[in-house]
């Protein structure tokens, strides 16, 4: 009896720990494409980018129960055959399994924009951050594509390091999809106060420069000087290695509320950013949720499910009701959210105003679906309880 976990991030780690907690005592092999043990990514756009990257210092503590895990790092899974119960690595190694955990996560989306590629960067891994770290120097012209959380956090860090920062995004306001236009505008004004320039409603048509990117051309004809371009325009699920197995790979890997993948061929679960899972708190519509707490929540459930399946037992069919939560630190502001503000159709600032500490409620026809606070974390606790009661 053996388990292979593809993905050595937080979801892979929590799945291994959860398998052990649920009584699975057999061998576990974890495959990771990065050369590092599971580490914490949020600091990569913030303090680690500003203060230096020490990947060992970012490593998660690993529970004693997973000390015997075989970590195959620096090598990605190239393919899997669920019928044969094998995963094949890029170096040709074939790993047989009785149970498979899909935890291969996501990668930054790259847009096909003409021009040189040297000077174009993304921020997902510690190696990405190490490369960027040397480039965010005082006076450097930094262009950030995309006004989501990663783009905005990186903008704040680049400003702190003295770079000249412009954000180019097709959206009308930064972080508009999760936060809505009014709070997005408040966040934009905070960034503008700190010297970030916004070019909203525009895309980048082309990069220019002979050997490397020297400038970017926007869709309205504006030309901006560029020493560094950081592309933060969303993500793509790493599902390619699963092709040919008849799985539903529409936007990640579709799973049920126990994180089980529908297939008769093998015992398979999926966790973390890649798992398109139903949440009974929010209508049970399968969604991928790229929040930091979801690999832990889905990993806990998936480990218990897989341990039960491997023991010949029925896994729990209880609804999945983990509370989505995200937070973001930009400059001195702490933004925190509970629930799914992105699915709201009515947004109300209930305390303060969006230029200062505030609480914003997000509703749809089913009632309160989310809350966001800026510098009001203790006051969000009753909201979280109210959201949890939607179950």
């Amino acid at each position, binding site marked *: 009896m053996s388990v292979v976990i593809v993905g050595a991030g937080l979801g892979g780690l*929590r799945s291994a720990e959860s398998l052990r907690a649920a009584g699975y005592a057999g061998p576990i092999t974890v495959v990771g494409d990065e050369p590092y043990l599971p580490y*914490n990514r*949020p600091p990569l756009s913030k303090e680690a980018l500003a203060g230096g990257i020490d990947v060992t210092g970012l490593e*998660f*503590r690993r*529970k004693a129960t997973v000390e015997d895990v075989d970590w195959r790092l620096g090598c990605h899974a190239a393919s899997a055959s669920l019928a044969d119960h094998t995963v094949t690595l890029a170096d040709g190694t074939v790993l047989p399994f009785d149970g498979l955990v899909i935890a291969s996560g996501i990668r930054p989306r790259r847009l096909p924009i003409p021009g040189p590629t040297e000077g174009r960067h993304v921020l997902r891994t510690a190696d990405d951050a190490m490369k960027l770290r040397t480039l965010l120097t005082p006076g450097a012209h930094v262009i950030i594509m995309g006004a989501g959380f990663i783009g905005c956090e990186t903008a704040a860090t680049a400003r702190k390091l003295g770079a000249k920062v412009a954000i180019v995004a097709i959206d009308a306001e930064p972080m508009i999809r999760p936060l809505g236009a009014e709070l997005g505008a408040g966040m934009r004004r905070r960034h503008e106060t700190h010297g970030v320039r916004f070019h909203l409603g525009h895309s980048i048509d082309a990069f220019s420069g002979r050997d490397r990117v020297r400038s970017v051309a926007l869709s309205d004809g504006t030309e901006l000087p560029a020493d560094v371009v950081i592309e933060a325009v969303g993500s793509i699920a790493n599902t390619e290695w699963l092709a040919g197995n008849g799985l539903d790979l529409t936007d990640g890997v579709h799973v049920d509320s126990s994180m089980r993948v529908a297939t008769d061929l093998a015992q398979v679960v999926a966790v973390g950013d890649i798992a398109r899972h139903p949440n009974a708190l929010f209508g049970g519509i399968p969604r991928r949720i790229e929040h*930091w*707490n979801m690999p*832990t929540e889905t990993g806990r459930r998936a480990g218990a499910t897989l341990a039960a399946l491997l023991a010949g037992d029925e896994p729990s069919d209880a609804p999945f009701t983990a*509370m989505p*939560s995200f*937070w973001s*630190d930009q400059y001195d502001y*702490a933004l*925190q959210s509970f629930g799914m503000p992105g699915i709201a159709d009515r947004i109300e600032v209930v305390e303060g105003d969006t230029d200062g500490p505030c609480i914003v409620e997000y509703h749809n026809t089913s009632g309160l679906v989310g809350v966001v606070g800026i*510098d009001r*974390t*203790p006051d*969000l*606790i009753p909201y*979280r309880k109210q959201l949890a009661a939607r179950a």
Partner: protein
Amino acid sequence: MTAPDIPVVTVYVDRSKCQGYGQCCFEAEDVFHLDEDGKLVYVADSDISHRADIVNAADVCPMQAITVS
């Protein structure tokens, strides 16, 4: 006569890491809470029966500031 050893679980929070996100407060309500200013307040020694909740609290800390022994 000596008092029997009562098994406890001990928590340490690294204040230089804690950002007051409060995620731990939902996993172990009896151990962690945020005060009015958003500062984390916690009970260092708890009955061993709280251990699972406390380990979960340490797992969900975004800054990985909680140590359980």
